[in-house]
């Protein structure tokens, strides 16, 4: 077996705990140690690391939308240096296999926080990015879970997020459109939760179309 991040072979160490553990190991201990879990205290809604109960971002969204379309966000890791390098290889070099490194933590987080009847919506990728990369990283993550995927949303326009200021990002036009009716219970899947604007734009479209519960599971809270 080989580590999905660094390609080193993983030695089979048999201890009492691994003897009864039949999950396939996808990470070596060195890479595993360098990943940092996104732990509390965090905002109860979006898991931003803060002492406050509700962070200033979430407060802003409540004011902006009257009612925040996103019920909650769960994120697994922080965006530390090691994670930045790993994501660069995953997304910009297009090393798809890395996604399998997150399989176990991603499944565990889903089972712990979200209802079984949820459908998954991977955030659609802009077409230019998709053809460069050959895959949508959000969909790659969603495929780690054995849940039905919702394919009824498209991304219009090709805005480049990183060039805009925070304010511009928060108030830009909503880039998402539904092509099918929305399911009732939906979990949005994405790689990184930064300001939450992308996930909330998608959530707004779903709520407007009658979804009852919209939350998100993201790999990283930056």
């Amino acid at each position: 077996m080989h580590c999905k991040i660094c390609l080193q072979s993983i030695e089979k160490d048999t201890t009492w705990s691994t003897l009864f553990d039949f999950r396939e190991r996808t990470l070596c201990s060195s890479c595993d140690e360098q990943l940092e879990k996104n732990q509390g205290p965090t905002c109860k809604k979006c898991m931003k690391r803060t002492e406050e109960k509700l962070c200033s971002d979430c407060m802003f969204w409540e004011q902006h939308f009257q009612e925040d379309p996103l019920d909650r966000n769960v994120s697994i890791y922080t965006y530390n240096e090691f994670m930045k390098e790993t994501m660069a290889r995953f997304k910009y070099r297009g090393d798809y296999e890395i996604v399998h490194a997150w399989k176990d933590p991603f499944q565990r987080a889903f089972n712990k926080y979200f209802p079984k009847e949820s459908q998954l919506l991977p955030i659609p990728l802009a077409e230019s990015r998709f053809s460069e990369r050959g895959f949508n990283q959000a969909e790659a993550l969603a495929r780690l879970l054995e849940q039905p995927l919702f394919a009824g949303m498209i991304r219009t326009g090709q805005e480049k997020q990183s060039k805009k200021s925070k304010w511009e990002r928060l108030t830009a036009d909503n880039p998402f459109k539904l092509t099918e009716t929305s399911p009732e219970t939906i979990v949005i899947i994405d790689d990184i939760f930064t300001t939450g604007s992308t996930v909330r734009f998608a959530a707004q479209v779903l709520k407007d179309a009658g979804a009852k519960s919209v939350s998100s599971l993201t790999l990283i809270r930056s």
Partner: protein
Amino acid sequence: MNANPWSPRFSGKRLLKNELNLSESVFQGLLTKGYLIEIPSIKETLFYLECQRCHTRKPSHFGKIPTKTIQSFSYQNRPATNSITYCRNCIQMGRVSTNEPLYEWNGPIANLPKVKQPSIWRGELTALQSKAADAMVEAIRNQSKILIHAVCGAGKTEMLYRGLWIAFRNGFRVCIATPRADVVRELAPRLRRDFPSIEMAALYGGTQETDINAHLVVATTHQLLRYSKSFDVMIVDEVDAFPYHHDKSLPKAVARSVKESHALIYLTATPRLDLKIASRLKQLQTISIPLRYHGHPLPLPKLSQVFKLHQHLQQGTLPKKITHWIDQRKAAQRRFLLFVPTIETAQSLSKKLDIPYVHSESSNREELIHHFRNQQYEALITTTILERGVTFPSIDVAVIGADHDVFDEAALVQIAGRAGRSADDPDGDVTFFYNVKTKAIVKARQYTELKNLEGKKFKKEFN
């Protein structure tokens, strides 16, 4: 002279579409003309896959990307296969996959102009350097193979000059491949200075330089993965060094990057077994240079056994023998390098001795080396990364924990070779501190004795 404007850029290369950096219409035009040909990136056989860029065959180096996904359905036509296969081993150079082929130039070949006066260098070679230089000229003329086995500090670079001169005058394309970027950075400016009328490209991960039919390419071995049938003369520096030695795909890359008839020159101070055997069997002509350019013998490593050395290091204490050695250097105002086996030891010793340390992942590696060279630091602690190539004129060297696995014979010989490099100060002190005397330690010392004996004999014959 060039039959096609694109030919100088693409002759002898094997590149990805985005590395070609052509507009879609020009790209399609060159394809239909047959000037560019498509090479499938991943060769599939019954028993294995092989990447056609890095030549890996390890199953764990290949990954899959599913194609029947919801996003692909909204943007693409129904894909023919369930997944594409790509190479993870060389993905740092851009992804190659069953969907992303490589391209080679198949159009008119760009000829290199012959350079009448390639060099302004007026230095003189020693008798031994001259012997190696002439052998290399011979190999270039005959398009054959030789091994130049020269001790550290023999003046390797100057030995190449006569051969390079002949090559450029004949319009040959030359590559000097070395395993370390540090060496490219040190070598390139020297060659630029001494061969000013030559087009040259220095290539290593992170440079912006491009090779547009240059006379001379100085590159890390990994950069060869972008070449195919390109060079008339290939000089492989430090053939014994990692990664050339460990990575079987790199010899394949060397073989691919040369033209059908070519000269191949191996340089090393410490040949590995395979080359030694080939040389004994006279399959590989070998030139031995046992003397340094300044004619003084190699410093003989002193052996110093320290009881429980590794326990000391683990507890972060230093045995008396070692602190004594350091104090002696300080008293004599000698600058020194301390080699240690691991990054952890480097860190803890650095704290204890208040001496900066450098290792392969130091972000300020170049800066640290630069400061030591400028004499801003009196001492530097290092892992094996400074074992080769990088030279400092007048230093002493100690290996702390010379019995550790990372210090094989070649590593110890190379490390000892850091001392006594300058003619004004030809005898540096070299000391190996160890608990258990390993075969590598014994052999490294024997190597030095043998080379010094050979050198003495040669000197007698010549005087």
